[in-house]
């Protein structure tokens, strides 16, 4: 070993300044084990559950337009979820994952950043896409795995991705996007962009090693990004108290030297204000911020799950009363910004748009067979070309066994579809 690892320090001329890794540390002369009560992480709340503004100081922190945009996007998300859970029950799609109860956390945060900011998500953040203008048809093309899905039907439903909307394609392995967000933000900084990265994940995913890596690296390498943990109380069946013993996820931020804020995740305006401030701070100082959104997964984990196996109806009812859409509704009523008729119109139009989009998307063909080997590498490498050729010959030999690719359904419209 010795020779290969040998130092060649002789060519280092620059002076190294003395370091003191203990410069900030005070001393004590008594043994005390410090426990978690030593930190305090209160939760920002601007609206109470009945929709009253709790701190007048913030009353101009948003305007009517943004409040309504937020509110409508939350509604769209709720309706989308209802529709798709039903579609899965009908066997029209194989899988779905709803964010019911968490719309405020997701949409509020998305409203707090800019369109040019990159968003990386876990999988329960369709509200972010809604806010950014992903259409009903775009949602359906992904979920029906058809040829118009930008992912070319390669991933399970809910693995959205849209380059134009700065929304990174979803990946199932949990936590992997967290260090990636730090790296992406570092790239934004190096490229001199006036943009940050907003990275969502669940409190379960925060147990992964990648969480630790991502937060620490973002702090050390001074990355302008926001880590947004949705603490919704469950990771599938595992309750938060079997996930961690500390004071939520927020209390970890401090340990990384990351500025941190805990927010009521069912309060869309608190989420909006906190995220906006986090973005300002992060971009100005090239520093990460951790936001913990306290919320609750009212939905089942996914359409494959039945929560009655691990939690009580009563518990769910408590949280149903804290519905974030209801809270925002009351607030908008109180400040006189709500046009109930317009809302009803929006809701029914959204329903019919979604219905039309489902019908459209389920009639599209799957991507052509070639796409099974494209995008593995930038070009189709020779061994993949060989595999494709063999596969194509085989499919042509047995067309009835591979109906989707042997007889592609002629698609009437390859780019558009209903809006």
């Amino acid at each position, binding site marked *: 070993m010795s020779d290969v690892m040998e130092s060649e320090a002789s060519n280092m001329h620059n002076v190294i300044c003395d370091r003191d890794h203990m410069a900030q540390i005070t001393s004590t002369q008594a043994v005390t084990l410090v426990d978690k009560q030593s930190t305090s992480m209160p939760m920002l709340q601007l609206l109470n559950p009945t929709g009253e503004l709790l701190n007048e100081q913030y009353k101009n922190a948003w305007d009517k337009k943004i409040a309504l945009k937020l509110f409508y996007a939350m509604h769209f998300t709720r309706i989308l979820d209802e529709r798709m859970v039903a579609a899965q029950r009908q066997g029209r799609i194989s899988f779905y994952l709803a964010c019911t109860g968490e719309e405020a956390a997701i949409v509020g945060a998305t409203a707090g950043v800019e369109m040019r900011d990159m968003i990386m998500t876990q999988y329960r953040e369709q509200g972010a896409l809604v806010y950014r203008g992903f259409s009903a048809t775009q949602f359906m093309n992904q979920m029906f795995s058809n040829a118009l899905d930008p992912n070319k039907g390669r*991933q399970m439903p809910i693995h959205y991705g849209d380059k134009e909307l700065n929304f990174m394609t979803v990946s199932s392995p949990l936590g992997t996007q967290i260090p990636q967000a730090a790296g992406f933000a570092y790239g934004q900084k190096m490229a001199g962009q006036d943009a940050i990265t907003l990275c969502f994940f669940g409190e379960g995913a925060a147990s992964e090693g990648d969480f630790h890596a991502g937060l620490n690296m973002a702090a050390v390498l001074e990355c302008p990004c926001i880590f947004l943990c949705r603490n919704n109380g469950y*990771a599938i069946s595992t309750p938060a108290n079997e996930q961690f013993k500390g004071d939520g996820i927020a209390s970890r931020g401090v340990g990384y030297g990351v500025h941190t804020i805990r927010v009521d995740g069912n309060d869309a305006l608190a989420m909006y204000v906190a995220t906006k401030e986090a973005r300002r701070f992060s971009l100005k100082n090239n520093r990460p911020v951790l936001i913990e959104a306290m919320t609750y997964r009212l939905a089942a984990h996914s359409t494959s799950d039945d929560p009655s196996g691990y939690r009580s109806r009563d518990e769910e009812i408590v949280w149903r009363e804290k519905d974030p859409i209801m809270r925002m509704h009351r607030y908008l009523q109180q400040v006189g910004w709500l046009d109930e008729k317009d809302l009803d119109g929006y809701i029914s139009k959204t329903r019919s748009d979604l219905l039309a989009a489902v019908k459209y998307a389920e009639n599209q063909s799957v991507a052509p067979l070639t796409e099974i080997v494209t995008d*593995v590498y930038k070009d189709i490498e020779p061994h*993949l070309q060989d595999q494709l050729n063999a596969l194509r010959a085989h499919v042509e030999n047995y067309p009835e066994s591979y109906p*989707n690719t042997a007889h592609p359904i002629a698609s009437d419209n390859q780019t558009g579809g209903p809006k």
Partner: protein
Amino acid sequence: MAQLNLLQAVNHALHTAMEADDSVMVMGEDVGHFGGVFRATSNLQKTFGKARCFNTPLVEQGIIGFANGLAAQGAKPIAEIQFADYIYPAFDQIVNETAKFRYRSGGQFTVGGLTIRTPYGGGIAGGHYHSQSPEAFFAHVPGIKVVIPRNPYQAKGLLLSSIRASDPVLFMEPKRLYRASVGEVPEMDYELPLGKADLVQNGSDITLVAWGAQVEILQEAAQKALSHGVSCEIIDLQSILPWDRETICQSVIKTGRCLINHEAPLTGGFASEIAAVVQSECFLHLEAPIARVCGLDTPYPLAHEKEYMPDALKTFEAIMQTVHF
């Protein structure tokens, strides 16, 4: 005898092992009260208590790290990785720790009591991340054993052997078969030998080798080949590491031809190892090149899953090509 599906057979084995030995403990994501996302660990917590069947935080490297420590202490942990696609965060703990624990300490310390259970494989519209078959990665790791059952009977017997083996075992369960069908499973405690292949069907023209859910693909293809006058011998490898070279090679020496089928991508898949050994051991007996019918060298796709899969038709074609070489 009970009629059980593969999932129930696994659950039976776990109950049996925990009943027989207090040091057996089950751990993993959602394995506790809920009984696992596939329900393989149903009722274990209720029967044996929370201390012996417990949820872990969501961290695969921690699950295996913790299980390594627990096994080193003398317990017999059975750690579940929810999907084989999510075993990679634990790769270091498995490759550098589990597999080398005994060797590096000269036999002073061992994690021989460890069993890792994980559902693997495609056919359930799971896309890239709920379909992978990573057995070849682990086949290249001296120090662990890799075992895959193909039906409920095998599942119970092989899992019990794996739990009780003195070496760490990665036990991979073909999730496509979990509820696909039921089979006869003895109520009693029984073990099936590790490191041994299972002769599924006698034949004379070609030896077909697979494991897990692909064995039934071979059976289907063999059926079709039979109607074309080709007699196939079918072998379920059962143990991927160490594997039963003798049984395979003896069969190929008899038939003169060999085909291996797996779902994982072709390049670097475990079929390559079998082919490399068979061509060497059976060189003078081979009448045709050894065929590999495997997944494509791509991530596991969703919309094109049917096209990606090494199915019975592709297998049948390759059988015929090999026989008529």
